Protein backbone atom coordinates (compact mmCIF):
# COMPACT_ATOMS: atom_id res chain seq x y z
CA UNK A 1 0.00 0.00 0.00
CA UNK A 2 1.27 3.41 -0.93
CA UNK A 3 0.78 5.98 1.81
CA UNK A 4 1.44 9.64 1.18
CA UNK A 5 2.16 11.95 4.09
CA UNK A 6 1.73 15.71 3.78
CA UNK A 7 4.16 17.55 6.03
CA UNK A 8 4.83 21.18 6.73
CA UNK A 9 8.06 22.75 7.90
CA UNK A 10 7.37 25.11 10.80
CA UNK A 11 9.36 27.11 13.35
CA UNK A 12 10.51 25.12 16.37
CA UNK A 13 7.94 25.13 19.18
CA UNK A 14 10.40 26.99 21.43
CA UNK A 15 10.65 29.95 19.00
CA UNK A 16 9.86 33.37 20.43
CA UNK A 17 7.72 34.59 17.56
CA UNK A 18 8.08 38.21 16.44
CA UNK A 19 6.25 40.07 13.68
CA UNK A 20 8.65 40.74 10.80
CA UNK A 21 9.45 43.94 8.93
CA UNK A 22 6.72 42.87 6.48
CA UNK A 23 3.80 42.82 8.93
CA UNK A 24 2.21 39.90 7.08
CA UNK A 25 4.95 37.49 8.14
CA UNK A 26 7.00 36.62 11.20
CA UNK A 27 10.71 37.42 11.46
CA UNK A 28 12.51 34.24 10.42
CA UNK A 29 16.10 35.15 11.36
CA UNK A 30 17.63 32.59 13.69
CA UNK A 31 14.62 30.27 13.59
CA UNK A 32 15.15 26.52 13.86
CA UNK A 33 12.83 24.71 11.48
CA UNK A 34 11.19 21.42 12.30
CA UNK A 35 8.52 19.09 10.92
CA UNK A 36 5.22 20.17 12.42
CA UNK A 37 4.61 17.79 15.38
CA UNK A 38 1.14 16.66 14.21
CA UNK A 39 2.66 15.80 10.84
CA UNK A 40 5.23 13.68 12.67
CA UNK A 41 2.37 11.62 14.08
CA UNK A 42 1.20 11.16 10.50
CA UNK A 43 4.66 10.05 9.34
CA UNK A 44 4.93 7.62 12.26
CA UNK A 45 1.52 6.16 11.51
CA UNK A 46 2.42 5.69 7.84
CA UNK A 47 5.61 3.86 8.84
CA UNK A 48 3.62 1.63 11.20
CA UNK A 49 1.13 0.81 8.44
CA UNK A 50 4.01 -0.22 6.16
CA UNK A 51 5.64 -2.26 8.95
CA UNK A 52 2.37 -3.95 9.93
CA UNK A 53 1.51 -4.90 6.36
CA UNK A 54 5.11 -5.91 5.69
CA UNK A 55 5.02 -4.10 2.37
CA UNK A 56 4.23 -0.73 0.89
CA UNK A 57 5.71 2.65 0.33
CA UNK A 58 5.72 5.82 2.40
CA UNK A 59 6.14 9.08 0.49
CA UNK A 60 6.58 12.40 2.30
CA UNK A 61 5.37 15.50 0.46
CA UNK A 62 5.89 19.16 1.18
CA UNK A 63 6.05 22.48 -0.60
CA UNK A 64 7.97 25.68 -0.08
CA UNK A 65 11.49 27.09 -0.39
CA UNK A 66 14.74 25.12 -0.57
CA UNK A 67 15.03 24.70 3.22
CA UNK A 68 11.91 22.51 3.20
CA UNK A 69 14.19 19.70 1.97
CA UNK A 70 15.55 19.47 5.52
CA UNK A 71 12.11 18.64 6.86
CA UNK A 72 11.69 16.02 4.14
CA UNK A 73 15.13 14.62 4.98
CA UNK A 74 13.97 14.20 8.60
CA UNK A 75 11.00 12.17 7.35
CA UNK A 76 13.37 10.04 5.25
CA UNK A 77 15.63 9.57 8.30
CA UNK A 78 12.60 8.36 10.28
CA UNK A 79 12.03 5.77 7.57
CA UNK A 80 9.98 7.22 4.70
CA UNK A 81 11.00 5.67 1.38
CA UNK A 82 11.14 8.82 -0.71
CA UNK A 83 9.93 12.39 -0.82
CA UNK A 84 8.44 14.95 -3.16
CA UNK A 85 9.31 18.61 -2.82
CA UNK A 86 7.25 21.22 -4.64
CA UNK A 87 9.97 23.83 -4.82
CA UNK A 88 8.11 27.11 -4.88
CA UNK A 89 8.96 29.87 -2.41
CA UNK A 90 5.52 31.37 -3.08
CA UNK A 91 3.94 28.44 -1.28
CA UNK A 92 5.32 29.69 2.00
CA UNK A 93 2.80 32.50 2.24
CA UNK A 94 0.10 30.81 0.19
CA UNK A 95 -3.42 30.46 1.50
CA UNK A 96 -4.69 27.01 2.42
CA UNK A 97 -6.72 26.52 -0.75
CA UNK A 98 -3.69 27.20 -2.95
CA UNK A 99 -1.61 24.81 -0.85
CA UNK A 100 -4.35 22.20 -1.02
CA UNK A 101 -4.57 22.52 -4.82
CA UNK A 102 -0.86 21.98 -5.20
CA UNK A 103 -0.85 19.02 -2.84
CA UNK A 104 -3.93 17.51 -4.48
CA UNK A 105 -2.13 17.68 -7.82
CA UNK A 106 0.83 15.78 -6.34
CA UNK A 107 -1.56 13.21 -4.90
CA UNK A 108 -3.16 12.74 -8.30
CA UNK A 109 0.26 12.11 -9.83
CA UNK A 110 1.30 9.70 -7.09
CA UNK A 111 -2.07 7.94 -6.74
CA UNK A 112 -1.63 6.64 -3.16
CA UNK A 113 -4.27 4.53 -1.37
CA UNK A 114 -4.08 6.67 1.73
CA UNK A 115 -3.13 10.25 2.58
CA UNK A 116 -2.11 11.14 6.12
CA UNK A 117 -1.34 14.55 7.55
CA UNK A 118 -1.42 16.39 10.87
CA UNK A 119 -4.67 17.81 12.16
CA UNK A 120 -3.09 21.26 11.71
CA UNK A 121 0.32 22.83 11.34
CA UNK A 122 1.52 24.49 14.52
CA UNK A 123 2.43 27.78 12.85
CA UNK A 124 -0.77 29.09 11.25
CA UNK A 125 -3.10 26.62 13.01
CA UNK A 126 -5.67 26.79 10.22
CA UNK A 127 -6.31 23.05 10.20
CA UNK A 128 -7.89 23.35 6.77
CA UNK A 129 -5.49 21.73 4.32
CA UNK A 130 -6.30 18.06 5.02
CA UNK A 131 -10.01 18.59 4.51
CA UNK A 132 -9.52 20.85 1.49
CA UNK A 133 -7.27 18.30 -0.20
CA UNK A 134 -9.91 15.61 0.35
CA UNK A 135 -12.61 17.90 -1.03
CA UNK A 136 -10.58 18.70 -4.15
CA UNK A 137 -9.97 14.99 -4.74
CA UNK A 138 -13.53 14.01 -3.89
CA UNK A 139 -12.21 11.63 -1.21
CA UNK A 140 -13.63 11.06 2.25
CA UNK A 141 -11.80 12.67 5.12
CA UNK A 142 -11.66 12.00 8.83
CA UNK A 143 -9.92 14.57 10.99
CA UNK A 144 -8.22 14.35 14.38
CA UNK A 145 -7.90 10.57 14.42
CA UNK A 146 -6.58 8.79 17.52
CA UNK A 147 -6.38 5.31 16.02
CA UNK A 148 -6.73 3.56 12.68
CA UNK A 149 -6.80 0.02 11.35
CA UNK A 150 -6.78 -0.75 7.65
CA UNK A 151 -8.76 -3.82 6.60
CA UNK A 152 -6.61 -6.69 5.43
CA UNK A 153 -7.90 -6.36 1.84
CA UNK A 154 -6.89 -2.70 1.87
CA UNK A 155 -10.34 -1.57 0.80
CA UNK A 156 -11.43 0.23 3.94
CA UNK A 157 -10.04 1.76 7.10
CA UNK A 158 -11.63 1.95 10.54
CA UNK A 159 -10.54 5.08 12.33
CA UNK A 160 -11.43 6.57 15.68
CA UNK A 161 -11.52 10.12 16.94
CA UNK A 162 -11.97 11.31 20.46
CA UNK A 163 -15.01 13.36 21.28
CA UNK A 164 -16.23 14.49 24.67
CA UNK A 165 -16.30 11.35 26.77
CA UNK A 166 -16.23 8.85 23.91
CA UNK A 167 -14.32 7.48 20.97
CA UNK A 168 -16.17 7.80 17.67
CA UNK A 169 -15.39 4.98 15.26
CA UNK A 170 -15.86 5.32 11.52
CA UNK A 171 -15.38 3.08 8.51
CA UNK A 172 -14.11 4.84 5.40
CA UNK A 173 -13.41 3.47 1.95
CA UNK A 174 -9.88 3.94 0.62
CA UNK A 175 -8.49 6.11 -0.81
CA UNK A 176 -9.16 8.72 1.84
CA UNK A 177 -7.52 11.46 3.87
CA UNK A 178 -6.90 11.06 7.61
CA UNK A 179 -5.54 13.80 9.85
CA UNK A 180 -3.62 12.92 13.00
CA UNK A 181 -4.35 14.07 16.52
CA UNK A 182 -1.85 13.88 19.36
CA UNK A 183 -2.13 10.49 20.98
CA UNK A 184 -2.31 8.57 17.70
CA UNK A 185 1.17 7.27 18.38
CA UNK A 186 4.57 8.21 19.79
CA UNK A 187 6.84 9.19 16.87
CA UNK A 188 10.19 7.42 16.75
CA UNK A 189 13.53 9.19 16.80
CA UNK A 190 15.49 8.70 13.59
CA UNK A 191 18.30 6.20 14.14
CA UNK A 192 21.82 7.24 13.17
CA UNK A 193 21.69 4.63 10.43
CA UNK A 194 18.41 6.14 9.28
CA UNK A 195 20.06 9.56 9.08
CA UNK A 196 23.03 8.18 7.16
CA UNK A 197 20.69 6.28 4.82
CA UNK A 198 18.42 9.30 4.23
CA UNK A 199 20.90 11.04 1.95
CA UNK A 200 20.72 8.13 -0.47
CA UNK A 201 16.94 8.39 -0.75
CA UNK A 202 15.25 10.38 -3.47
CA UNK A 203 13.71 13.80 -2.98
CA UNK A 204 11.86 14.44 -6.22
CA UNK A 205 11.72 18.11 -7.02
CA UNK A 206 8.71 19.56 -8.80
CA UNK A 207 8.28 23.13 -9.97
CA UNK A 208 4.94 24.94 -9.88
CA UNK A 209 4.71 24.43 -13.65
CA UNK A 210 5.02 20.63 -13.38
CA UNK A 211 1.66 20.24 -11.69
CA UNK A 212 -0.61 22.16 -14.03
CA UNK A 213 -2.19 24.04 -11.16
CA UNK A 214 -3.60 27.43 -12.03
CA UNK A 215 -3.11 29.66 -9.08
CA UNK A 216 -5.42 32.62 -9.46
CA UNK A 217 -4.34 34.46 -6.35
CA UNK A 218 -5.22 33.75 -2.76
CA UNK A 219 -8.84 33.34 -1.73
CA UNK A 220 -7.82 34.08 1.82
CA UNK A 221 -5.68 37.16 2.07
CA UNK A 222 -3.63 37.81 5.16
CA UNK A 223 -3.93 41.49 6.02
CA UNK A 224 -1.40 41.76 8.82
CA UNK A 225 -0.10 40.20 12.00
CA UNK A 226 -0.47 42.17 15.20
CA UNK A 227 1.58 41.56 18.30
CA UNK A 228 -0.61 40.74 21.27
CA UNK A 229 -0.81 43.43 23.93
CA UNK A 230 1.40 42.56 26.90
CA UNK A 231 -0.33 40.55 29.59
CA UNK A 232 -1.49 42.69 32.46
CA UNK A 233 0.54 41.99 35.60
CA UNK A 234 -0.70 39.47 38.11
CA UNK A 235 -2.34 40.62 41.28
CA UNK A 236 -1.45 39.51 44.78
CA UNK A 237 -4.25 39.46 47.30
CA UNK A 238 -2.73 40.22 50.70
CA UNK A 239 -3.98 39.29 54.14
CA UNK A 240 -4.69 36.22 56.23
CA UNK A 241 -5.50 33.11 54.14
CA UNK A 242 -9.11 33.05 55.28
CA UNK A 243 -9.82 36.65 54.24
CA UNK A 244 -7.62 36.43 51.18
CA UNK A 245 -9.51 33.39 49.88
CA UNK A 246 -12.82 35.13 50.46
CA UNK A 247 -11.55 38.12 48.49
CA UNK A 248 -10.20 35.84 45.75
CA UNK A 249 -13.57 34.14 45.35
CA UNK A 250 -15.30 37.50 45.24
CA UNK A 251 -12.89 38.79 42.56
CA UNK A 252 -13.23 35.62 40.49
CA UNK A 253 -16.99 35.86 40.70
CA UNK A 254 -17.60 39.57 40.34
CA UNK A 255 -14.67 40.98 38.40
CA UNK A 256 -13.27 38.13 36.33
CA UNK A 257 -16.67 36.39 36.11
CA UNK A 258 -14.76 33.12 36.02
CA UNK A 259 -16.97 31.27 38.52
Amino acid sequence: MKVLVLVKQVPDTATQVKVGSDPRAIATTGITWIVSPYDEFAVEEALRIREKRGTGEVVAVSGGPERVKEALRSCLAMGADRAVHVLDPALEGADTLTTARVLAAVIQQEAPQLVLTGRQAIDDDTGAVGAQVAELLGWPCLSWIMEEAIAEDGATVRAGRQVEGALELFDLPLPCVLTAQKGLNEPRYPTLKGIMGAKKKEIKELGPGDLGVNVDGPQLELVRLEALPPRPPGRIIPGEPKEAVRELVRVLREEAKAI
Partner: protein
Amino acid sequence: MDFALTEEQRLVRQTAREFAEGEIAPVAARFNEAGEFPWEIVRKLGELGFLGAIFPPEYGGAGLDSVSYVLLVEEIARADGSIALTVAAHNSLCSGHIYLAGTEAQRQKYLPRLARGEALGAWGITEPGSGSDASAMKTTAVEDDAGFILNGTKAFITNGSVAEIAVVMAVTDPARAAKGISAFVLERGAPGFRPGGTYQKLGLHASDTAELILDNVRVSREQLLGQLHGGFVDTLKVLDGGRISIAAMAVGLAQGALDASVTYARERHAFGQPIGHFQGIQGMLAELATEIEAARLLTLRAAYLKDQGRGIRLESSMAKLFASEVGMKVTTKAIQIHGGYGYTREFPVERHFRDVKLCEIGEGTSEIQRLIIARQILQLT
Protein backbone atom coordinates in the same frame (compact mmCIF):
# COMPACT_ATOMS: atom_id res chain seq x y z
CA MET B 1 36.88 27.78 4.94
CA ASP B 2 33.32 26.75 5.60
CA PHE B 3 31.77 26.69 9.05
CA ALA B 4 28.42 25.31 7.88
CA LEU B 5 27.40 21.85 9.02
CA THR B 6 26.21 19.41 6.39
CA GLU B 7 22.53 18.48 6.28
CA GLU B 8 23.46 15.13 7.82
CA GLN B 9 25.42 16.71 10.66
CA ARG B 10 22.50 19.02 11.40
CA LEU B 11 20.13 16.06 11.46
CA VAL B 12 22.40 14.16 13.86
CA ARG B 13 22.53 17.20 16.15
CA GLN B 14 18.79 17.71 15.99
CA THR B 15 18.08 14.05 16.71
CA ALA B 16 20.55 13.96 19.60
CA ARG B 17 19.04 17.16 20.97
CA GLU B 18 15.48 15.87 20.74
CA PHE B 19 16.51 12.60 22.36
CA ALA B 20 18.41 14.37 25.12
CA GLU B 21 15.55 16.78 25.83
CA GLY B 22 12.83 14.18 25.53
CA GLU B 23 14.37 11.11 27.12
CA ILE B 24 17.41 12.12 29.19
CA ALA B 25 16.68 15.53 30.73
CA PRO B 26 13.44 14.44 32.46
CA VAL B 27 15.16 11.55 34.28
CA ALA B 28 18.76 12.76 34.67
CA ALA B 29 18.30 14.21 38.16
CA ARG B 30 16.57 11.03 39.36
CA PHE B 31 19.36 8.70 38.19
CA ASN B 32 22.06 10.99 39.54
CA GLU B 33 20.37 11.39 42.91
CA ALA B 34 19.99 7.63 43.21
CA GLY B 35 23.50 6.93 41.91
CA GLU B 36 21.87 4.47 39.54
CA PHE B 37 23.23 3.39 36.16
CA PRO B 38 20.58 4.43 33.61
CA TRP B 39 20.15 1.11 31.79
CA GLU B 40 16.80 2.14 30.25
CA ILE B 41 18.48 5.12 28.56
CA VAL B 42 21.53 3.09 27.51
CA ARG B 43 19.25 0.52 25.88
CA LYS B 44 17.59 3.29 23.84
CA LEU B 45 21.01 4.73 22.92
CA GLY B 46 21.85 1.32 21.51
CA GLU B 47 18.63 1.14 19.48
CA LEU B 48 19.30 4.55 17.95
CA GLY B 49 22.87 3.62 17.03
CA PHE B 50 24.56 6.06 19.42
CA LEU B 51 26.75 3.26 20.80
CA GLY B 52 28.23 2.51 17.39
CA ALA B 53 28.18 6.07 16.11
CA ILE B 54 31.65 6.32 14.58
CA PHE B 55 32.23 2.82 13.27
CA PRO B 56 31.61 1.70 9.69
CA PRO B 57 28.40 -0.16 8.87
CA GLU B 58 30.31 -3.40 8.22
CA TYR B 59 30.95 -3.53 11.97
CA GLY B 60 27.38 -2.63 12.88
CA GLY B 61 28.09 1.07 13.28
CA ALA B 62 26.43 4.13 11.80
CA GLY B 63 29.56 5.42 10.07
CA LEU B 64 29.30 8.97 11.41
CA ASP B 65 32.15 11.39 10.92
CA SER B 66 33.90 12.84 13.97
CA VAL B 67 32.14 16.20 13.61
CA SER B 68 28.73 14.50 13.93
CA TYR B 69 30.00 12.48 16.87
CA VAL B 70 31.19 15.62 18.67
CA LEU B 71 27.77 17.22 18.09
CA LEU B 72 26.08 14.13 19.47
CA VAL B 73 28.20 13.97 22.65
CA GLU B 74 27.70 17.70 23.21
CA GLU B 75 23.92 17.42 22.94
CA ILE B 76 23.79 14.51 25.38
CA ALA B 77 26.06 16.31 27.86
CA ARG B 78 23.78 19.36 27.75
CA ALA B 79 21.21 17.14 29.44
CA ASP B 80 23.48 14.87 31.46
CA GLY B 81 27.23 14.44 31.87
CA SER B 82 27.02 10.87 33.11
CA ILE B 83 25.37 9.53 29.98
CA ALA B 84 27.69 11.58 27.78
CA LEU B 85 30.68 10.01 29.50
CA THR B 86 29.22 6.51 29.17
CA VAL B 87 28.82 7.08 25.42
CA ALA B 88 32.26 8.73 25.04
CA ALA B 89 34.20 6.02 26.90
CA HIS B 90 32.33 3.24 25.13
CA ASN B 91 32.81 4.67 21.63
CA SER B 92 36.10 6.54 21.71
CA LEU B 93 38.09 4.36 24.08
CA CYS B 94 36.98 0.73 24.10
CA SER B 95 35.48 0.40 20.62
CA GLY B 96 37.93 2.99 19.31
CA HIS B 97 40.93 0.96 20.42
CA ILE B 98 39.54 -2.27 18.96
CA TYR B 99 38.80 -0.52 15.67
CA LEU B 100 42.23 1.15 15.59
CA ALA B 101 44.41 -1.81 16.52
CA GLY B 102 42.26 -4.89 16.08
CA THR B 103 42.70 -7.53 13.39
CA GLU B 104 39.76 -8.08 11.05
CA ALA B 105 38.77 -11.09 13.17
CA GLN B 106 38.89 -9.06 16.37
CA ARG B 107 36.87 -6.24 14.84
CA GLN B 108 34.24 -8.71 13.63
CA LYS B 109 34.16 -10.47 16.97
CA TYR B 110 33.69 -7.46 19.23
CA LEU B 111 32.59 -4.34 17.35
CA PRO B 112 29.10 -5.38 16.18
CA ARG B 113 28.04 -6.26 19.73
CA LEU B 114 29.47 -2.99 21.02
CA ALA B 115 27.97 -0.95 18.18
CA ARG B 116 24.48 -2.38 18.68
CA GLY B 117 24.72 -1.74 22.41
CA GLU B 118 24.40 -5.44 23.27
CA ALA B 119 27.67 -5.03 25.16
CA LEU B 120 29.04 -1.93 26.83
CA GLY B 121 32.75 -1.28 26.60
CA ALA B 122 35.35 -0.23 29.17
CA TRP B 123 38.99 0.71 28.73
CA GLY B 124 41.68 0.46 31.35
CA ILE B 125 45.08 2.05 31.56
CA THR B 126 44.94 3.90 34.93
CA GLU B 127 45.90 2.05 38.11
CA PRO B 128 45.76 2.95 41.81
CA GLY B 129 49.42 3.97 41.63
CA SER B 130 49.72 5.23 38.06
CA GLY B 131 47.72 7.78 36.12
CA SER B 132 49.63 10.42 34.23
CA ASP B 133 52.81 8.33 34.59
CA ALA B 134 51.89 5.25 32.60
CA SER B 135 55.41 3.87 32.85
CA ALA B 136 54.70 3.13 36.54
CA MET B 137 52.08 0.56 35.44
CA LYS B 138 52.06 -2.54 37.67
CA THR B 139 49.64 -4.78 35.79
CA THR B 140 51.61 -7.53 34.09
CA ALA B 141 51.00 -9.91 31.23
CA VAL B 142 53.42 -12.80 31.34
CA GLU B 143 53.73 -14.77 28.16
CA ASP B 144 53.83 -18.56 28.12
CA ASP B 145 53.18 -21.28 25.56
CA ALA B 146 49.42 -20.87 25.64
CA GLY B 147 49.24 -17.07 25.64
CA PHE B 148 49.42 -14.64 28.55
CA ILE B 149 48.61 -14.54 32.26
CA LEU B 150 47.38 -11.12 33.47
CA ASN B 151 47.68 -9.83 37.01
CA GLY B 152 46.96 -6.39 38.43
CA THR B 153 44.32 -3.79 39.28
CA LYS B 154 42.91 -1.02 37.08
CA ALA B 155 41.44 2.06 38.74
CA PHE B 156 38.78 4.68 37.85
CA ILE B 157 37.49 2.66 34.91
CA THR B 158 34.40 4.20 33.29
CA ASN B 159 31.76 1.48 32.66
CA GLY B 160 34.02 -0.82 34.72
CA SER B 161 31.29 -2.82 36.44
CA VAL B 162 28.69 -2.67 33.64
CA ALA B 163 30.88 -3.50 30.64
CA GLU B 164 30.82 -6.84 28.87
CA ILE B 165 33.99 -6.09 26.94
CA ALA B 166 37.10 -4.36 28.24
CA VAL B 167 40.41 -3.35 26.74
CA VAL B 168 43.19 -3.32 29.36
CA MET B 169 46.82 -2.38 29.14
CA ALA B 170 49.50 -4.50 30.84
CA VAL B 171 53.26 -4.57 31.01
CA THR B 172 54.71 -7.25 28.74
CA ASP B 173 58.34 -6.12 29.00
CA PRO B 174 59.21 -4.37 32.28
CA ALA B 175 62.66 -3.40 30.95
CA ARG B 176 61.19 -1.18 28.22
CA ALA B 177 58.95 1.05 30.36
CA ALA B 178 56.12 2.57 28.25
CA LYS B 179 57.44 0.74 25.19
CA GLY B 180 56.87 -2.57 26.96
CA ILE B 181 53.11 -2.18 27.34
CA SER B 182 50.54 -4.25 25.41
CA ALA B 183 46.75 -4.12 25.08
CA PHE B 184 44.36 -7.05 25.59
CA VAL B 185 40.62 -7.52 25.01
CA LEU B 186 38.82 -9.26 27.84
CA GLU B 187 35.24 -10.39 28.21
CA ARG B 188 33.19 -10.28 31.36
CA GLY B 189 33.15 -13.63 33.11
CA ALA B 190 36.69 -14.65 32.18
CA PRO B 191 38.06 -16.58 35.19
CA GLY B 192 39.95 -14.22 37.50
CA PHE B 193 38.60 -11.07 35.82
CA ARG B 194 36.07 -9.11 37.82
CA PRO B 195 35.07 -5.56 38.71
CA GLY B 196 36.34 -4.40 42.09
CA GLY B 197 34.89 -1.57 44.14
CA THR B 198 33.05 1.41 42.72
CA TYR B 199 33.83 4.95 43.83
CA GLN B 200 32.01 7.64 45.80
CA LYS B 201 32.53 10.49 43.34
CA LEU B 202 32.05 14.26 43.39
CA GLY B 203 29.80 14.07 40.34
CA LEU B 204 28.80 11.90 37.38
CA HIS B 205 26.74 9.80 39.76
CA ALA B 206 24.88 8.02 36.98
CA SER B 207 28.11 6.98 35.31
CA ASP B 208 29.70 3.72 36.39
CA THR B 209 33.27 3.96 37.64
CA ALA B 210 34.92 0.85 39.05
CA GLU B 211 38.14 -0.98 39.60
CA LEU B 212 38.96 -3.92 37.39
CA ILE B 213 40.71 -6.80 39.11
CA LEU B 214 42.88 -9.18 37.13
CA ASP B 215 43.81 -12.22 39.18
CA ASN B 216 45.73 -14.78 37.10
CA VAL B 217 43.54 -14.13 34.07
CA ARG B 218 44.44 -16.49 31.26
CA VAL B 219 44.17 -14.92 27.80
CA SER B 220 44.93 -16.35 24.38
CA ARG B 221 47.13 -14.73 21.76
CA GLU B 222 43.94 -13.84 19.87
CA GLN B 223 43.13 -11.43 22.70
CA LEU B 224 46.32 -9.43 22.24
CA LEU B 225 45.20 -6.15 20.63
CA GLY B 226 47.75 -4.60 18.27
CA GLN B 227 51.45 -5.31 18.32
CA LEU B 228 53.15 -6.91 21.30
CA HIS B 229 54.70 -4.02 23.27
CA GLY B 230 52.83 -1.61 20.99
CA GLY B 231 50.00 -0.89 23.41
CA PHE B 232 51.17 2.49 24.60
CA VAL B 233 51.62 3.96 21.13
CA ASP B 234 48.07 2.87 20.29
CA THR B 235 46.85 4.23 23.61
CA LEU B 236 48.11 7.69 22.71
CA LYS B 237 46.28 7.54 19.38
CA VAL B 238 43.09 6.35 21.08
CA LEU B 239 43.35 9.23 23.53
CA ASP B 240 43.75 11.75 20.69
CA GLY B 241 40.24 10.78 19.64
CA GLY B 242 38.97 10.35 23.19
CA ARG B 243 40.00 13.84 24.18
CA ILE B 244 37.80 15.35 21.49
CA SER B 245 34.81 13.61 23.03
CA ILE B 246 35.75 14.85 26.53
CA ALA B 247 36.04 18.36 25.08
CA ALA B 248 32.58 17.92 23.55
CA MET B 249 31.26 16.72 26.89
CA ALA B 250 32.65 19.84 28.60
CA VAL B 251 31.12 22.09 25.93
CA GLY B 252 27.76 20.37 26.39
CA LEU B 253 27.80 20.67 30.17
CA ALA B 254 28.78 24.33 29.87
CA GLN B 255 26.00 24.97 27.33
CA GLY B 256 23.48 23.22 29.58
CA ALA B 257 24.52 25.45 32.48
CA LEU B 258 24.32 28.55 30.28
CA ASP B 259 20.86 27.58 28.97
CA ALA B 260 19.62 27.20 32.55
CA SER B 261 21.18 30.55 33.47
CA VAL B 262 19.56 32.36 30.55
CA THR B 263 16.17 30.96 31.49
CA TYR B 264 16.74 31.91 35.12
CA ALA B 265 17.92 35.43 34.22
CA ARG B 266 14.70 35.97 32.27
CA GLU B 267 12.40 34.65 34.97
CA ARG B 268 13.97 35.64 38.25
CA HIS B 269 13.01 39.12 39.37
CA ALA B 270 14.92 41.39 41.72
CA PHE B 271 14.35 45.07 42.41
CA GLY B 272 11.27 44.98 40.20
CA GLN B 273 12.77 43.53 37.02
CA PRO B 274 14.21 40.32 35.60
CA ILE B 275 17.83 39.93 36.73
CA GLY B 276 18.80 39.58 33.06
CA HIS B 277 18.15 43.32 32.76
CA PHE B 278 21.10 44.07 35.06
CA GLN B 279 24.43 44.69 33.41
CA GLY B 280 26.30 42.57 35.95
CA ILE B 281 24.33 39.48 34.89
CA GLN B 282 24.42 40.47 31.21
CA GLY B 283 28.20 40.78 31.32
CA MET B 284 28.55 37.31 32.81
CA LEU B 285 26.18 35.72 30.30
CA ALA B 286 27.89 37.40 27.35
CA GLU B 287 31.32 36.26 28.47
CA LEU B 288 30.22 32.69 29.12
CA ALA B 289 28.44 32.41 25.78
CA THR B 290 31.53 33.71 23.99
CA GLU B 291 33.89 31.33 25.74
CA ILE B 292 31.63 28.36 25.09
CA GLU B 293 31.60 29.26 21.40
CA ALA B 294 35.40 29.39 21.35
CA ALA B 295 35.62 25.99 23.08
CA ARG B 296 33.07 24.55 20.65
CA LEU B 297 35.01 25.81 17.64
CA LEU B 298 38.28 24.31 18.92
CA THR B 299 36.49 21.02 19.48
CA LEU B 300 34.78 20.98 16.10
CA ARG B 301 38.03 21.90 14.37
CA ALA B 302 39.89 19.01 16.04
CA ALA B 303 37.09 16.70 14.92
CA TYR B 304 37.19 18.15 11.40
CA LEU B 305 40.94 17.57 11.18
CA LYS B 306 40.46 13.99 12.38
CA ASP B 307 37.93 13.52 9.57
CA GLN B 308 40.56 14.80 7.15
CA GLY B 309 42.88 12.05 8.38
CA ARG B 310 45.28 14.52 9.93
CA GLY B 311 47.24 14.09 13.16
CA ILE B 312 45.36 15.83 15.95
CA ARG B 313 47.54 15.41 19.03
CA LEU B 314 48.00 19.18 19.43
CA GLU B 315 44.46 20.14 18.46
CA SER B 316 42.69 17.54 20.59
CA SER B 317 44.77 18.49 23.63
CA MET B 318 44.06 22.18 23.09
CA ALA B 319 40.35 21.49 22.71
CA LYS B 320 40.17 19.35 25.83
CA LEU B 321 42.26 21.71 27.94
CA PHE B 322 40.35 24.80 26.91
CA ALA B 323 36.86 23.29 26.89
CA SER B 324 37.20 21.65 30.30
CA GLU B 325 38.49 24.86 31.89
CA VAL B 326 35.75 26.88 30.18
CA GLY B 327 33.30 24.28 31.49
CA MET B 328 34.53 24.80 35.03
CA LYS B 329 34.30 28.58 34.70
CA VAL B 330 30.86 28.55 33.09
CA THR B 331 29.32 26.20 35.63
CA THR B 332 30.83 28.19 38.52
CA LYS B 333 29.35 31.42 37.16
CA ALA B 334 26.07 29.68 36.38
CA ILE B 335 25.69 28.86 40.06
CA GLN B 336 26.53 32.49 40.85
CA ILE B 337 23.82 33.73 38.49
CA HIS B 338 21.33 31.42 40.19
CA GLY B 339 22.36 32.71 43.63
CA GLY B 340 21.17 30.59 46.55
CA TYR B 341 19.05 28.39 44.29
CA GLY B 342 22.12 27.56 42.22
CA TYR B 343 23.65 25.98 45.29
CA THR B 344 20.71 23.59 45.64
CA ARG B 345 19.67 20.46 43.80
CA GLU B 346 16.47 22.14 42.66
CA PHE B 347 18.39 23.47 39.65
CA PRO B 348 20.68 21.49 37.33
CA VAL B 349 23.67 23.84 37.47
CA GLU B 350 25.26 22.38 40.62
CA ARG B 351 25.17 18.95 38.95
CA HIS B 352 26.81 20.28 35.79
CA PHE B 353 29.41 22.00 37.99
CA ARG B 354 30.28 18.76 39.78
CA ASP B 355 30.19 16.73 36.56
CA VAL B 356 32.41 18.97 34.44
CA LYS B 357 35.27 18.85 36.94
CA LEU B 358 36.07 15.36 35.66
CA CYS B 359 36.82 16.82 32.21
CA GLU B 360 39.90 18.53 33.70
CA ILE B 361 41.15 15.16 35.01
CA GLY B 362 40.02 12.19 32.92
CA GLU B 363 41.85 11.15 29.73
CA GLY B 364 44.85 13.23 30.73
CA THR B 365 44.80 16.01 33.32
CA SER B 366 45.00 19.65 32.31
CA GLU B 367 48.64 19.53 33.37
CA ILE B 368 49.34 16.65 30.99
CA GLN B 369 47.50 18.53 28.20
CA ARG B 370 49.75 21.55 28.77
CA LEU B 371 52.75 19.25 28.63
CA ILE B 372 51.59 17.72 25.35
CA ILE B 373 50.89 21.14 23.85
CA ALA B 374 54.23 22.57 24.99
CA ARG B 375 56.16 19.58 23.66
CA GLN B 376 54.43 19.97 20.31
CA ILE B 377 55.13 23.67 19.94
CA LEU B 378 58.71 23.33 21.24
CA GLN B 379 59.14 20.25 19.05
CA LEU B 380 60.53 18.31 22.00
CA THR B 381 59.00 14.98 21.03
